[in-house]
């Protein structure tokens, strides 16, 4: 067998094969490769995640999609159809980007959570509307440049996981491509639970974040290490921090991304205190039930 044939044999074992249209260094394909390791063939994918959906064509699972203004709703319909047909064995996964989940279809995601629809809702978050050319979303962080916030975003990132936690859903978790083992455990856990599960993954977009393609995983790691993107899970209301890394200054994270170039020293200290407060709040509640 030639080397290429050996490669092809290998790809046949996987649920995703190479050859997608994403930018070099896009976090999307990394996220999907890792998430699919935790799922199996008995899965149906609903939705895409607009930018990272350049990669959906390479995924070897049955898929159905409308548009990003349709997050979760179709998955609810598919789950209901499978239920009435006696096929609740099939895992229904709904995926969307930060724009879909956080903005245009936020009401829909909230409704799926309230109904406790038996689906896994993924949010593949690259912190802006990237597929339409880098416009601000509700999940763009404070201070970030986008084409619609050229002077830096004035409002803070919408905290979707915590909002959905208050919907009393059975399970939610934050994921990172820099911590694949942690990610895999969380995906497998979600798969085994009945009801509405929410998995939120923030990943760098070199094109929109103005970062080096080669540093995508490194930036994702530093996000966790600084506390900017904390890794935790909330199961039946109980918060558990799954990574408690050493506290790294936010500057290490911000300086690797061109989108934060406009920040002043004061902005950076403001961000540092904000992140410190959030970290302390999380640590205080670690191991406790956070339902209010």
């Amino acid at each position: 067998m030639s080397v290429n044939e050996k490669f092809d044999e290998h790809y046949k074992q996987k649920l995703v094969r190479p050859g997608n249209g994403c930018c070099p260094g896009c976090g999307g394909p990394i996220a999907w490769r890792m998430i699919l390791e935790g799922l199996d063939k008995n899965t149906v994918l609903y939705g895409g995640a607009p930018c990272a959906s350049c990669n959906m064509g390479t995924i070897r699972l049955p898929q159905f999609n409308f548009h990003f203004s349709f997050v979760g709703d179709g998955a609810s319909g598919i789950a209901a159809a499978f239920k009435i047909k006696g096929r609740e064995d099939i895992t229904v996964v709904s995926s969307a980007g930060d724009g879909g989940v956080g903005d245009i279809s936020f009401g829909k995601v909230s409704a799926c959570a309230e109904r406790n629809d038996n689906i896994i809702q993924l949010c593949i978050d690259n912190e802006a509307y990237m597929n339409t050319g880098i416009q601000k979303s509700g999940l763009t962080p404070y201070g970030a440049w986008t084409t619609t916030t050229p002077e830096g975003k004035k409002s803070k990132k919408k905290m979707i996981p915590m909002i959905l936690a208050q919907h009393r859903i059975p399970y939610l978790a934050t994921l990172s491509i820099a911590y694949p083992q942690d990610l895999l455990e969380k995906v497998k856990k979600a798969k085994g639970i009945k009801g509405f599960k929410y998995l939120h993954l923030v990943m760098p977009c070199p094109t929109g974040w103005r970062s080096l393609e080669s540093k995508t995983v490194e930036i994702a790691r530093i996000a966790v290490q600084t506390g900017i993107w904390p890794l935790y899970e909330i199961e039946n209301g109980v918060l558990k921090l799954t990574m408690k890394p050493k506290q790294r200054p936010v500057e290490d994270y911000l300086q690797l991304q061109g989108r934060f170039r406009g920040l002043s020293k004061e902005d950076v200290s403001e961000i540092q205190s904000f992140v410190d407060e959030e970290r302390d709040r999380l640590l205080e509640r670690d191991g406790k039930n956070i339902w209010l």
Partner: protein
Amino acid sequence: MSLLRSFKPVIVQDNCKRCGVCATYCPEGVIVKIGDDYQIDYRYCKGCGICANECPHKTISMVREKAEG
């Protein structure tokens, strides 16, 4: 794919510790252990350089693609 790449990753097999970190993080999933060696499928590699950046042993070099005449 070589037409779209500016740089391509090259694993120095003698230094490679076979830790598999490059394969874990490659966005395209084109670093695969074949036999004893990790090899890169250049048909699909986009030359992003994540593998070289993540390699704990600095065993992967990014080499400029030669322009084809």
